[in-house]
């Protein structure tokens, strides 16, 4: 069927500001939006720029705004939209546009690095694995679904107002290490994000949770961090964990 795509364009070499360009193409109902963009690029306009790689929602390359909502272009099919055959495609908000649908993700990854995204252990040399209860492991499971696509952080209204706020994606990664029973740096991790730029920046607006293409309950995870920070302020600090 015939579809129309109105796509945000910006070429730093010629454009002063962004503009929209319209394309019409034949698409199947079961085509992914990414397939449609590829068709435009292969058949009509090879200059259209966007990131993509895995094409099945696992690498996190192609978060963008489709008909006003943040989505992964490879995870949404033409038939998933109720807007007839008309699509408007725009780059992620919050980040600056490099070209067309490609945004600068460096600030996003800088925040990611800031939360010390690695396991810190007591340095016990073991021949075998650290034992970990399956239930403990299950606590961090939702956060393991994260593909660093930046949808949540781009959607978060707090982030737009306060550029210093770490944002949901980085905090979710902090959650993943804070609640990993093998990690020995819980206290210092909590201290690090106990601030308005840290976990208290989150006002539970839930926009992150709504847009997450992996269905991660981001707001809930951040809530668990907040509770732990409060507990720590009230009671004696928790035993360092093995």
């Amino acid at each position, binding site marked *: 069927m015939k579809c129309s795509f109105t796509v945000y364009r910006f*070429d*730093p*070499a010629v454009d002063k500001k962004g503009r929209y360009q319209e394309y019409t193409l034949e698409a199947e109902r*079961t085509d992914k939006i990414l397939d449609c963009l590829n068709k435009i*690029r*292969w*058949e009509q306009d*090879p*200059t259209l*720029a966007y*990131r*993509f*790689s*895995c*094409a*099945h*929602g*696992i*690498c*996190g*390359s192609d978060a963008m705004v489709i008909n006003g909502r943040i989505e992964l272009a490879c*995870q949404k*099919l033409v038939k998933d939209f109720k807007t007839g055959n008309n699509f408007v495609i725009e780059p992620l908000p919050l980040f600056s546009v*490099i*070209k*067309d649908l*490609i945004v600068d*993700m460096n600030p996003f990854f800088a925040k990611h*690095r800031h939360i010390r*995204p*690695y*396991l810190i*252990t007591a340095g016990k040399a*073991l*021949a*075998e*694995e*650290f*034992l*970990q*209860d*399956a239930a403990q*492991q299950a606590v*961090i*499971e939702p956060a*393991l*679904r994260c*593909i*660093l696509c930046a949808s949540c952080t781009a959607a978060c209204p707090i982030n737009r107002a306060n550029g210093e706020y770490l944002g949901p994606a980085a905090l979710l990664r902090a959650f*993943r*290490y804070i609640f*990993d029973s*093998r*990690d020995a740096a819980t206290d210092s991790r909590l201290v690090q994000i106990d601030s308005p730029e840290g976990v208290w920046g989150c006002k539970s607006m839930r926009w992150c949770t709504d847009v997450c293409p992996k*269905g991660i309950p981001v707001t809930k995870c951040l809530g668990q961090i907040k509770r732990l920070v409060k507990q720590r302020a009230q009671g004696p600090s928790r035993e360092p964990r093995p």
Partner: protein
Amino acid sequence: MKHEYDIVIVGAGLAGLRAAVEIGGDTRVAVLSKVFATRSHSGAAQGGIGAALGNEEEDHPEWHMFDTVKGSDYLGDQDAIEILTEDAPRAIYELEHLGVPFNRTREGKIAQRAFGGHTRQFGAAPVKRACYAATRTGRVILDTLWEQSLQKGVAFYDEYQILSLIIRDGQCGGVVAYELATGKLHTFHSQAVLFATGGAGKIYKTTSNAFASTGDGMAIAFRAGAPLEDMEFVQFHPTGIYKLGILISEAARGEGGILLNNDGERFMERYAPVIKDLAPRDMISRCMLEEIRAGRGIRGQDYLHLDLTHLGQAVIESKLAEIASFARTYAGADPVKDPIPVQPTCHYMMGGIATDADGRVVVDRAGTPFPGLYAAGECACVSVHGANRLGCNALLDTLVFGRRAGIEMQRYIRATGSPHRSAEPEKKDADRLRGLMESKGRERSGRIRAEMQATMMDKVSVFRVQDGLRAAVAKIKELQERYPQIAIQDKGHCFNRDLLDAIELGHMLDLAEVIILGALYREESRGAHSREDFPARDDTRFLVHTLFGYDAIRGPQIFTKPVKITRFQPQERKY
């Protein structure tokens, strides 16, 4: 721009990052990747990683070794396979200590599940050997290794695509890379280069591989004088989502899923009475196509059903969550209630750049190293997978041999002086890019790519026959002749995909040719290479590795090298 490092690693998948973690900190290391590091296709690996930990039931590295040898249809080098399987438990514990969140058993140990071709007691019954993190095993290992590399101060050059190797006096001394965001060329001088550039599934129309899996490393090394080994062995995974090729992991069958034909028959019982749906991939893919040819495809069409409905919602949501969501999104099938339509999909290259067990690229039968050049992961051929890779052994391969390559490179750079600098190493690439950008031809890379993919799918996939292969070679030659006529429409320098598509296509055409020539030469059926005109394995003539060296004038030149057999003599391969 010029950059100086001790070691340059090309590729930020598991193989490249495992090497980086090994040597980062002590050595100045740069990792270059054409996609942002965490977008590497290792992140798509779902099912698991094999190691005889024995956490769920008795298991031994020796059994793992036997299964891998047998799975390889006796073409894998047994000395290397022994290293792989003996080192596996250490590699897993190390990952766990680095933070990889594996699923757990009741006692809190790393949980394990069954996978195709992995058995106890040398084939007696399936064994639980695959360590996993739900169906996100690759994702969590990739994240962990990336985060560890950042911590170690490894320099990342994301969205840098390498175009060529810098070679002087036969010694490798760096790479030339194209920066996607600016279109600028960068030269990276180093004492050693590791290629960890992954697979090349995009040569085929239907594949589980990413758009970035275009075999760049293999093709660039080949043109620089490194032979490619066993390229005719291309793995087709039995369960790609119909028409799309998106993978439904073997874990689905490891957890008890079964394949059904149009009669509702569990047909694998007929072909592999002992391990049934957990037979190795080459075998199941062939059986599926046999069923389809016999008219037993679903509704007479070219697909079958993967049925998980009897596993129940709890198992599906907890252990197979990711693939359940793929089935819902892309096939419109809810695996709790509906069978999933599947067909074989191009998945893995058993062949690659010939290396030894320390990641050194080797140039001849005698194993003479290519000074300064290393390869690991899917782009390399050690060979541990021989004619058919077992599930869960690819991730293991990246970790074991990525680490070994790291160790060996560090030893090498300490023992060897810097290579002589070549003047303007980027000039050749600059000229080539200019030529492409200014070409006035009438071809589009998209068209040539589509014809290549269709030819390879049609004539060089699961079943092969001489006439078809000859036609395929002629077609690829025709496409190679048309290739210089490609005109780049995008004249810009910022994320010029049009240009990169053309460059990648050139690489894939080179590789397609070698795959077909290997398939033509090998007049037997072994592992994933199945010749309908030569249905039997022929150990007298073909218990050898096929290698091709580049020759600009005469075309790829073949030679062979013996298989290393240490403990397990070739037997008939039955399951």
